[in-house]
């Protein structure tokens, strides 16, 4: 794939006899025509919903969530995290086909909470967790940066003395 698209509706630079006039937008090759656009991995199709919720009728307290335009980043995170709550009896995800950016999350609870609420609660907890990491990281980063800059300054000063 190209690093960037070319748009050649350009005007000829007159003072250069070697320049050929180009008046085209680059045609796609056959291979490129079949290639799906990469942004289809994360931008929802026309009218597509982010999450489709389907109640599983054969098993009680079970819901299958279909996440569109999401991948293992979210699938693994949510399904694994859910397993840590004791009201979850089953939680797993699958990517039905690797060429389509979608995954199915199946959640069964013990009935004390709906699968939907369980997922929402799980997401909230992860967000809080991440906030803590973020805070801790920012503090540590500043500390270490100051230390390392101090060391560098000290080195410079030492060199000046010699």
């Amino acid at each position: 794939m190209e690093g960037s698209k070319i748009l050649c509706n350009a005007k000829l630079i007159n003072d250069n006899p070697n320049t050929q006039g180009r008046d085209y937008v680059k045609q796609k090759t056959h291979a490129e025509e079949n290639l799906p656009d990469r942004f289809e991995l994360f931008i929802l199709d026309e009218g597509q919903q982010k999450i489709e919720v389907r109640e599983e009728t054969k098993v009680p307290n079970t819901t299958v969530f279909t996440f569109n335009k999401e991948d293992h980043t979210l699938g693994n995170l949510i399904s694994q995290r859910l397993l840590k709550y004791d009201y979850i009896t089953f939680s797993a995800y699958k990517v039905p086909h690797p060429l389509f950016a979608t995954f199915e999350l199946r959640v069964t609870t013990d009935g004390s909470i709906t699968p939907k609420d369980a997922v929402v609660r799980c997401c909230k907890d992860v967000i809080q967790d991440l906030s803590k990491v973020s805070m801790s990281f920012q503090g540590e980063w500043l500390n270490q940066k100051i230390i390392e800059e101090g060391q560098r300054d000290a080195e410079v000063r030492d060199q000046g003395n010699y």
Partner: protein
Amino acid sequence: MDIDDFGPKEPTCRMLEANDKRAYFIVRDWNLETANSLRRVMLAEVPTLAIDTVEVLDNTSVLADEFIAHRLGLIPLIAEDVDKLIDFRDCDCEDSRCDNCSVTLRLKAKCTGNDVMKVYARDMVIESMPPSDKLGQPVITDAEGNGSCIVKLRKGQAIDMRCIAKKGIAKEHAKWAPSAAIGFEYDPANKLHHLDLWYEGDDPKKEWPVDETRVDLDGGPEKTDEPFNYDAVPERFFFDVETVGGLSPDSIVNNGIKVLQQKLASVIKELTGVDEASAGLDGAQSPTMDGGFGNDGYGNDGGYTTPGYGGANAYAGGTTPYGATPYGGAPGW
């Protein structure tokens, strides 16, 4: 396992190295799934800036237009304030090249001398009015201050190109990747036996080098006299984030966390039908989060306690990257 088992332990960072190129740190008391998701997000979903469209006004160099366009796309640009740009797919402007969604750089060079002339990234000049001064400038880290070499010209050859740089993520194209590399490891001593080491002789321990420093940081080598703990899970994670130059290492980590939080918030919004932000969660915890996780038994939803989601932050305008606006334009935030 009960949630309270890990409730009281809060994830904390320990920085081992912090400079302009690299953030090398450990996160303790965390879990593998979140750590891995953060790694994936930092690799592929942190927005940066890269040249996406090139208008060729003149090219008499020996390289084809496409070839140079590709090289231009891969040049790292300073992206410290990309949040101030909106996604070009959401922008109302024609052919997406307005100052709200793009930065235009001009590369114009002609060789007049007898020597071969090298055209460098530093020769690109910003033509548009980017929302901040540095945004869109080519990253220059070499001692000479040249930046990447784009093309060589002989006498009489010239190039003139208008490059439109846009905000994007590495999921679409690797040129938008913020990090050159992300080191990620847990359990360097293989105490959890997640690795099955390949070996030729009798003992894999003789054939595999051990990173002593990391093993020490992770609680020492395996104790052979104790029985194997089948319930043990990884809790300490080594991250080594190295930047390309467009974003500082700490911005990559902070933005990665933000993007992941937005992702999760969009799930909440989608499932509850309520924009969490506009629901006015007055119960939001204090930024110190002392009374946080697990203490309230989930009786009240603590809301988000992300620093930087205040009303005046860059995301508050309802223009989060890629459409999802979980925190968008909400009053009281």
